[in-house]
């Protein structure tokens, strides 16, 4: 009987696969990415290397000496002191304590400060509080400390915001009205994020992390790219990271363009050059995890997409590898065996500049 290796499904459940099955899953996952993105499949050597990583006997694996990369963070200290029923663990602690714990105890290469809602719009009424927190943290820390938040353009639509919900308008076939609503929301998104970051940068922030860009589709990405462009012009030395929400930009609007490129339907390797063009220093590509597929399938698919993005990008790429993205299983407590294998594969095969 052929040896079986303990691996995971996309939801984290343990499964046992033979080497033959692992190889066929890798080929299928890579092929799926190649078909969708019209990018190269993994080579035979890369497939073999990925299989070797997945079949390593240890529970935790790591990159080879000398191949380590800097790690950036989303959600900041909220993973410690927050609790939204997902990644926060609700430990009563200040954000300064959280930042310093990451720097001095957890070995973080960079860190970020974020509002409990982790969206730019709700920061506006409490921006002074955020500036105070940033100043205190910067006075106590050494590693780069960003301000992080989600563009989260959905907050600009009714019932949460001033503009009519495009989903409701489209249901009534008011397509032009829906597009207008998205364009207005994007303008406000740009204006708000620039205003918030003007304050935070004046308070000593090293930069900004736009986390989950394009969560509300192409207009969300358009608004964020415009914000990046304005911030780069106003603050040439600001560190700007632009991370995505999903692998493909959803065409909610369908006709928006940035720098002559239609945003709807862009894959990671097509998104990266636009982030660089707008003025970002680092791009954070995303590939979603399919919970019904195996970890070899998901990881091969993610590595194929990200490798193409890294090659297409003129700026460093820090791949998103949180819960349910980048080959990581979709659950609150991703198994260490799956996380470390995905981490190693992204560095050694996809060639990422950071995670």
């Amino acid at each position, binding site marked *: 009987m052929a040896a079986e290796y303990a691996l995971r499904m996309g939801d984290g459940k343990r499964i046992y696969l033979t080497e033959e099955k692992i190889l066929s899953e890798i080929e299928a996952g890579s092929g799926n990415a190649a078909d969708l993105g019209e990018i190269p499949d993994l080579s035979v050597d890369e497939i073999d290397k990925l299989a070797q990583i997945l079949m390593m006997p240890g529970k*935790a*694996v*790591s*990159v080879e*000496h*000398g*191949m*380590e*990369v*800097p*790690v*950036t*963070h989303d959600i900041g200290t909220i993973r410690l002191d927050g609790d939204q029923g997902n990644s926060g663990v609700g430990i009563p602690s200040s954000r300064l304590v959280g930042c310093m714990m*990451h*720097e*001095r*105890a*957890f*070995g*973080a*290469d*960079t860190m970020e400060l974020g509002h409990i809602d982790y969206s730019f719009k709700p920061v506006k009424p409490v921006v002074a509080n955020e500036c105070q927190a940033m100043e205190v943290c*910067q*006075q106590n*820390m*050494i*590693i*780069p400390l960003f301000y992080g938040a989600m563009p989260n353009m959905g907050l600009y639509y009714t019932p949460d915001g001033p503009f009519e919900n495009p989903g409701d308008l489209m249901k009534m076939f008011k397509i032009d009205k829906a597009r207008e609503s998205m364009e207005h929301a994007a303008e406000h998104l740009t204006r708000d994020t620039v205003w918030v970051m003007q304050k935070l*940068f*004046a*308070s*000593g*922030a*090293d*930069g900004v992390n736009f986390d989950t860009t394009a969560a509300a589709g192409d207009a969300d990405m358009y608004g964020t790219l415009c914000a990046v462009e304005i911030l780069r012009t106003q603050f040439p*030395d*600001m*560190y700007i*990271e632009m991370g995505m929400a999903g692998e493909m930009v959803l065409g909610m609007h369908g006709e928006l363009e940035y720098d002559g490129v239609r945003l709807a339907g862009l894959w990671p390797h097509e998104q990266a050059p636009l982030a660089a063009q707008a003025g970002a*220093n*680092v791009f954070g590509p995303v590939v979603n995890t399919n919970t019904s597929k195996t970890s070899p399938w998901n990881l091969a698919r993610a590595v194929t997409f990200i490798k193409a993005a890294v090659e297409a990008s*003129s*700026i*460093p790429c820090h791949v998103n*590898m*949180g*819960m349910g993205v980048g080959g*990581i299983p979709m659950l609150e*407590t*991703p198994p260490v065996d799956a*996380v*470390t294998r995905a*981490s*190693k594969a*992204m*560095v050694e095969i996809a060639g*990422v*500049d*950071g*995670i």
Partner: protein
Amino acid sequence: MPISHIMASGMTGIRAAGDLVARMEFSKNMRIGEAKEYVAKKLNVDAMDLSDEHVMRELREELDIGIITSVPGAAKSIAAKMNIEKLLGIKINSCEAFRKQIA
């Protein structure tokens, strides 16, 4: 989960030289190889040493660029970042703000 990534692939921040390499990626858009090479040259070490806690523990103290423990008289926070600015030839926003405030 972030700890799993740090242990598997990270440069472990100020335990070694992860913060310095990250600063070069963000301040100069350097890709990982170029950033490591740049920092290694400034520190006069091999790129391999940038993730070596044994090498970097003593070197960070010697360069006064911040370490995880308390050493009497050693630079911390803004002071350490000002030394990093000089070492890497970059400007750090919080240091710029601090200088403006005491001018």
